């Protein structure tokens, strides 16, 4: 350690503190690491979103024929379009009923596994399987299950001697929406079950043990201890599930295409139809629907996050 040089030499040898600060990165590093994402995002997320907003106040015909129409699309939508209101009603029923069923059903399944039943690991794997399958696969299978002649639903009813209850489940406007909903719930129950199960295992064991010592019945234990302690999970799943169902498209499109008689039309299927199936060839009007519906969803997200103070916890 005889390295006593002039003072400026030692100063040179130790690099400036900023270069040693691992919290700082050079501009080049940032450009290399963030550049690709920001370019893709700008071109394929932000620009399309802005363009949809722009489209919503225009009439957009093929071959770049565009005309500014102001809020006419929105006026038509809110004032005259009974199919839109039918779609809003269906989507609302779907979002509310299926969300409640998903959350309660998932909780029920999780409690069944949590109660110390045998084969827990195998059962939860099987119960989760539908979550991994695509809507197309699930939809096709359930179209068969609902088939009037040989579908499982009617076959079971007939074998129980309840042949009078047999239905054209997806063909009857009275049952179609509920039938699609059952399929949707069936697909997602396992998802909620897994999350509830994780939350149940994370509960402090001493609290549950104390309840056991107090000779608390399982129902009292459920209502007074387990459900209050699961509140954050319940709230989270409810919001997540509700927002997801506000945008439901795939399953409805595959199983019924929105029919019969608009009985299963949802906002998203209606947007698709107006854009690509109807002979109006106008992208402006469906864009207006998409924008309006997005603003409603956004209002729900903001309201629910404010209400439940669960910032940064919402996604699709």
């Amino acid at each position: 350690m005889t390295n006593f040089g002039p003072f400026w030499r030692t100063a040179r040898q130790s690099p400036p503190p900023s270069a040693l600060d691992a919290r700082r990165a050079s501009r080049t590093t940032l450009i290399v690491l963030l550049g690709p994402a920001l370019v893709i995002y700008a071109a394929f997320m932000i620009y399309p979103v802005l363009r949809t907003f722009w489209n919503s106040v225009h009439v957009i015909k093929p071959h770049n024929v565009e005309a500014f129409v102001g809020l006419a699309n929105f006026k038509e939508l809110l004032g005259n379009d009974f199919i839109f209101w039918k779609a809003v009603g269906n989507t609302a029923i779907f979002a509310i009923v299926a969300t409640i069923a998903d959350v309660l059903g998932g909780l029920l399944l999780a409690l069944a596994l949590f109660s110390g039943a045998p084969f827990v690991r195998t059962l939860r794997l099987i119960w989760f399987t539908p979550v991994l399958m695509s809507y197309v696969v699930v939809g096709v299978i359930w179209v068969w299950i609902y088939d009037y002649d040989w579908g499982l639903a009617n076959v079971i009813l007939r074998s129980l001697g309840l042949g009078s209850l047999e239905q054209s489940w997806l063909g009857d406007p009275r049952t179609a929406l509920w039938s699609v909903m059952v399929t949707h719930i069936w697909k997602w129950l396992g998802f909620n079950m897994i999350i509830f199960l994780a939350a149940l295992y994370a509960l402090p064991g001493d609290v549950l043990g104390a309840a056991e010592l107090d000779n608390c019945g399982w129902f009292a234990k459920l209502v007074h201890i387990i459900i209050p302690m699961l509140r954050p999970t319940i709230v989270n799943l409810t919001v997540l599930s509700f927002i997801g169902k506000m945008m439901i498209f795939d399953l409805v499109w595959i199983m019924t295409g929105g029919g019969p008689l608009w009985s299963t039309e949802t906002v998203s299927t209606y947007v698709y139809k107006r854009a690509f199936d109807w002979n109006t060839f106008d992208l402006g009007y469906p864009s207006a629907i998409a924008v309006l519906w997005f603003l409603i969803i956004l209002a729900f997200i903001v309201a629910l996050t404010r209400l439940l103070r669960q910032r940064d916890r919402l996604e699709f």
Partner: protein
Amino acid sequence: MIAPAAKSPAHNWAAHLRRSPLLAFMLIYTVISGGPFLWVAVMSLRTTPEIFASPYALPSRVHWEKFVEAWTKSNYGTYFWNSTIVVVTAVALLTIIGAMVAHCLARYRFRGNRLVRFVILSGLILPPQLMILSLFQILLEYRLYNTLTGLIIVYVAGHLAITVYILEGFFAQIPQDLFDAARLDGYSDLEIFWRITLPIGVPALFTTVTLNFIILWNEFLYAVVLLTEDDKRTLPLGIMHFMGSHQLDVGMLATGLMIAIGPVILLYALFSETMIKGMTAGAVR
């Protein structure tokens, strides 16, 4: 999430008996959730006339050749490869680009940090429906409509937010000391990313890979809008198309469904816990 050693009721017959409604319920739900897939698997090995004669019977003779026929004559081979190309490329890009962004957001203080985070994570609340119509126009203009490349880019853009969200949460927990030490040892910024963040982040990367793989393998809305040519179709579109044109050929449709769910079932059998973790990653607190 491994089942704890719960008090086993097996030693107590009375308890066992009292629980039988519960056990019956669990058995029924197991049949309800798994049964339909078994049914399709059985149907995929039977011919359509056999199925119509008796929809719920076991195969009298196992028709493996139906898979060959579906693959070659009914175009499922093309759909399968299209799906594979799109999903593998998109997942690879998402993983690397997402990790790069997540590393920057978790590790560095820089001007615009919060803006970048806000912009990227805003993708979490932008529904596809809001972009799909203008993406249709934009891809037409960029000449990417009806191309797998276009679909891949759209998938990357659409799933970057959730990927970054999950990875950043994990990367932020890596101790800062490691990075300070690496910096002292003279690692460059990119070496730090490549040799510290990525290897340590492997579990989180697995999570996002499985999540993105499943969601994209099953994706329908973007694909149905952005692809129309038959030789570009991915599996979900191919099945829908086949259902539209051969609605009564239930046997061949079932074979097609098995081709679509085969890879998922295989991965699930091998990596069940990782896949469950991946699929629920965004929702668990």
